[in-house]
């Protein structure tokens, strides 16, 4: 395959090799001189060509973070590796190598053009991450199964494909099959596809393609459904009332409650349980709806707050920008005046004036910033109070609703106890007509056991309710604290950034003036 392969030793991709290549391929002439003076950092390189180097292993490329185009063709590479850091890569040429499997491309999400021509690949896969893929060259490989084409259907941007020189290209149906299954393709094996052929191919394979499409649509729909459900659940979670819009909580109460389930078999307990469930679910739904409403309220509150804060910041920034623009206008004039000034005393006076202007600007900008800090602090405090109030109200109301749940539970417990005791009495008297399972019958040995069973069921229920309530309260509280903390932190960060920015600017201005002074004095 590669004539040089036998005659030459495989080379290692070392620093020298890369440096040489970068130097040769970098800027030329005057710019090249500069580049050589300064040296080129690998991370600034956008395009690298490493063909005919007899490379066996891809290595040492991690520094080329911003590389857009990489040519590694005509080497003796056996594995695709060491490209993980090159996430900006758009164009990758690995043709004329000894690669046997497609791999190691999972991070190259920006790749548009991939050439694997003349390798030993027998299966098309591991390309899932390459969503932007437009051109794929896989000619002269060992691909023998036509089903590999179907894998390529997921690349919506794929326009050019070359597969000639593979076993599948020998097949009689090769062209038609590809055209039918990849209808968006424009070039196949470097030839433009004409619409007539495409139509024929579609007709020929219509049936199987329709079936395939139907399957794909089904999968797509299922994925979308799942997505929608997930989003809904996320929304409910954000309102802290997930799984309250139905009998989930109630069901979970009975999920681990062995005794409760046993007791439900008693005469009258079933109906009681049904009635209890209905009422319970109504309250749960109430909590759920209330939670969503409250979430909406909190969101509105937060949005208003953010909007107002942004407005205030924008307004303040606008003022700052205006001040700076005014200053710069004046400053430019005074700088050129200083440059033109010949008399030393005047010069000094002007320089002093100029630096006075600069410090005045500094004061103005800092005052503005201090003003903003004060304004925002007040607003943030107000928001904090309001949001805490809102959360407090929410918790209070949820707790009262939960208390209703507990009352229901207590009520149910009493009723159940009555039924159980009466059942026990009946059993003692031997009047019980019903046919009870043995394990239920085992509960009715004496009064204590029955009362204990009912009590333990009750305890489990109460525990579940308490847990749900606790969960809700903790989460909403922590959300609130986090939010407030974040707002405070953001504001502090903003303030620091601004102060830094102002200082930096003022320093620059002052330096500029000083430099001017120096050069003038030297002159």
């Amino acid at each position: 395959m590669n004539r040089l392969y036998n005659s030459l030793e495989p080379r290692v991709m070392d620093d020298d090799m890369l440096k040489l290549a970068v130097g040769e391929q970098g800027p030329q002439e005057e710019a090249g001189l500069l580049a050589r003076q300064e040296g080129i950092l690998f991370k600034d390189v956008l395009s690298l060509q490493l063909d005919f180097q007899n490379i066996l292993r891809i290595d040492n490329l991690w520094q080329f973070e911003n590389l857009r185009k990489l040519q590694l063709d005509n080497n003796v590479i056996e594995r695709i590796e060491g490209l993980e850091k090159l996430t900006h890569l758009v164009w990758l040429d690995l043709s004329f190598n000894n690669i046997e499997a497609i791999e190691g491309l999972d991070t190259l999400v920006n790749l548009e053009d991939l050439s694997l021509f003349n390798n030993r690949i027998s299966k098309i896969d591991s390309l899932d991450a390459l969503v932007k893929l437009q051109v794929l060259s896989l000619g002269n490989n060992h691909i023998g199964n036509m089903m590999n084409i179907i894998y390529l259907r997921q690349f919506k941007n794929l326009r050019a494909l070359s597969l000639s020189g593979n076993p599948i290209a020998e097949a009689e149906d090769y062209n038609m099959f590809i055209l039918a299954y990849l209808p968006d393709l424009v070039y196949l094996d470097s030839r433009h596809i004409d619409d007539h052929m495409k139509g024929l191919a579609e007709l020929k394979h219509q049936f199987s393609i329709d079936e395939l499409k139907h399957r794909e649509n089904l999968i797509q729909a299922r994925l979308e459904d799942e997505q929608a459900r997930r989003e809904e659940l996320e929304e409910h979670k954000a309102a802290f009332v997930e799984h309250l819009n139905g009998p989930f909580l109630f069901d979970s109460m009975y999920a681990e409650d062995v005794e409760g389930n046993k007791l439900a078999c008693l005469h009258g307990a079933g109906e009681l349980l049904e009635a209890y469930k209905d009422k319970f679910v109504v309250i749960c739904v109430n909590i759920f709806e209330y939670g969503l409403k409250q979430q909406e309220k909190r969101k509105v509150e937060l949005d208003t707050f953010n909007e107002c804060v942004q407005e205030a910041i924008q307004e303040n920034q606008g003022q700052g920008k205006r001040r700076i623009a005014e200053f710069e206008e004046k400053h430019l004039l005074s700088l050129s005046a200083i440059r033109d000034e010949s008399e030393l005393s005047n010069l000094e006076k002007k320089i002093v004036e100029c630096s006075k202007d600069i410090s005045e600007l500094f004061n103005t900008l800092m005052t503005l910033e201090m003003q903003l800090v004060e304004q925002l602090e007040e607003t943030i405090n107000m928001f904090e109070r309001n949001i805490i109030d809102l959360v407090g109200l929410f918790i209070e109301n949820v707790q009262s609703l939960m208390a209703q749940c507990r009352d229901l539970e207590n009520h149910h417990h009493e009723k159940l106890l009555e039924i159980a005791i009466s059942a026990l009495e009946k059993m003692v008297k031997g009047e019980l007509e019903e046919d009870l399972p043995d394990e239920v019958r085992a509960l009715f040995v004496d009064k204590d056991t029955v009362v204990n069973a009912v009590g333990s069921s009750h305890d489990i229920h109460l525990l579940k309710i308490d847990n749900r309530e606790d969960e809700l309260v903790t989460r909403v509280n922590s959300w609130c604290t986090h939010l407030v903390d974040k707002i405070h932190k953001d504001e502090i960060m903003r303030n620091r950034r601004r102060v830094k920015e102002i200082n930096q600017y003022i320093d620059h201005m002052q330096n500029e003036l000083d430099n001017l002074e120096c050069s003038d004095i030297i002159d």
Partner: protein
Amino acid sequence: MEVLKEEEEGKEAAKQEAAAEPAAEPTAEPSEEGEMMQPQEVGRRGTIMTQEMLRDLEKKLLGIEITVPEKPSIITKDTIDISKLPCSYQSNTPEEEHLLEVADNFSRQYSHLCPDRVPLFLYPLNECEVPKFVSTTIRPTLMPYPELYNWDGCAQFVSDFLSMEPLPDPLKPALWEKEEAPPKKYAVRPPRDLTSRFEQEQERKRQEKIKAEEERRQREEEERLQEVDSTGTDPLHGLRVHSWVLVLSGKREVPESFFIDPFTARSYSPQDEHFLGIESLWNHKNYWINMQDCWNCCKDLIFDLGDPVKWEYLLLGTDKPRLSLVDEEDDTLSEDYDIENLGKEDEDKCFDMPHSWVEQLEISPEVFETRCPNGKKVIQYKKAKLEKWAPYLNSNGLVCCLSTYKDPECTKILEVKEWYQNREDMLELRHINKDTGLIVDYFKPGHPQALRVHSYTSMQPEMDRVMEFYKTVRVDGLIRREETPKTMTEYYERRPDFLSYRHVNFGPRVKKITMNSTESNPRTVLKITERFFRNPAKPADEDVAERVFLIMEERIQLRYHCRENHITASKREFLRRTEVDSKGNKIIMTPDMCSSFEVEPSEHTKKLLYQYETMMQLKKEEKLCRHQAWESELEVLEILKLREEEEEAHTLTISIYDTKRNEKSKEYREARERVMHEEHLQQVEAQLDYLAPFLAQLPPGEKLTRWQAVHVKEECLSDFKQRLIDKANLIQARFEKETQELQKKQQWYQENQVTLTAEDEDLYLSYCSQAMFRIRILEQRLNRHKEMAPLKYMALEEKLCKDPRLAELLKSFV
């Protein structure tokens, strides 16, 4: 014209003062607007009326100095050819005579009962000096123009026709006021105001003082002016009687009654204090006298013409006006009912208003378009003059011109506004300020250079001028270009390179000794400033907001866009002074050639390589910019040239639907009409009954016998044969005559050939060729006739055989 002027004078006086004396006499039109009077009619009636009034007014007016400047009369008084008017104009029918008697009786009773009131205006003389009752001068007509369907459009047309001042639409839409947004919940408090209240107060007081002083001065000035204006109050106040149109509420969704001033097309509420009172009302059906007291002007008048206590009618119950009663309460309704019953009872006795003697009213589209008499109209305002022309009357498309003056005598022009229509260069309005010499041209969309506004003082290039363009039309996104002698500023929008502004400073022209002086010699460019909109695809630090090329200093300044949440922006300045260092080596790039301030310093941009590449790029772009500036200059020259040419040609466009003016459309229309006409003729011919003359000879009503049928057929055919022969003979005769004449001429020529002048010879030759042509044509016609005659004969025979009147009889005969 004089009459109109005086009436206007009186009206103005009436407007200025308002006293409670009932004197006005509006023409009432309690009919729907659709039945408006025809404008010519109004004009005529107005004239007549004022002639009547003139007699007693004239004496009083003679004693008054009129300070109105003499305005040029553009309407020549129509000289009416009485003889051409129909007889209804020249005489009265018996009904009209009867009506006049009734009116005379009514008038006498009235003057007896109300001796204090102005005599009634009942039967003025018309243009033929014939007395006509006022109501019969009105002929309700529905005009085919949608503009005339509603009162405002109609009144506007009438006022235009009467050459009086037009008015802007009285129903101007209310200005949209921006609603102040309610303060938001978390809106930050405004920063504390630390400025001294006291100082502000002092400053405010000082300003107020100055302002008060100014106001006082202004007021004094105004008072002085007013004094000058209103010298002499109107001694005739309340004595004049005017004619107005009153539209009563009710029909066509008129919510309340109002007056229309026919001269201004303005509507007035009856509550308006300019109306001192109403003497009488009339429409085409009846005449009413106001019996209500007008002490409070017209404010308390009730326009219920069915109430005989408030309105004394002339004719009983022709048509009960019950307009105002539609929505009234029950009691009035019942009252009305009574009146109606009364009317029905008296139906036999009552006398109907005769039909109008006025001719059917017609406004041709031309007259309607022309609007004003002769298509021209001049209105003199105080310190302003408005001239109007009909479209296409002026060759440059001028339709309206408003001149404002500095002084009341109208000698010093302040500014002139000229409106144009149908201009091919889309010029719509030209605004000339005589003080500053500034001319502003406004264009409608469609100018070849997409011009929208062009303001200039002179058409010379490199002077102060502003051009604005229609932004969606220009490919380069230019919307505005301002020029001064030394600068040019361009504003752009929606460009792919986000350029928004380019400012070029020019230096003096370098004197070049070039061989060909026609080559353009552009001015040197000193400085180019370009600004860009934010390009959202680039990070702010790489997106240039402004770049300045100081070409003389070889300095390039860049200012980048401001990052979000930042107030400072990165800056970079390139300066390239020396190409060669002290040792003679070429300097490529040194750190001092680029000074930059970066908001977020990055290693990448500190590199000389980066700076060098940026600078090279900028150098390239500098060249491009200079080229652009040069191209802009060229474009200005081109536009100016084009404008001059357009101004020179001032061609007007004519819509293809305008078949009167558009030559092509006209030809087409005429051709079509001709074709239609011919087709029509052919149809008539086709229907020609050949048998009619022969059948007429037979006794009518009897059925044809077979013999008669054959006879008729024979006769018809022989007649036709004779005609064919006659025609052939006629052609033959003409042919022979022409030939003979030609021979004679030829003979004459041969005889006199020697003495003939060249001119005569030419004449002879042209005669010969023409004669030959005629002869040839006649020959052809003769031949054709010979060919066609038998065919035609056969065709007729066949046709006669198939004629339903003869077919039966002839068939059996054959």
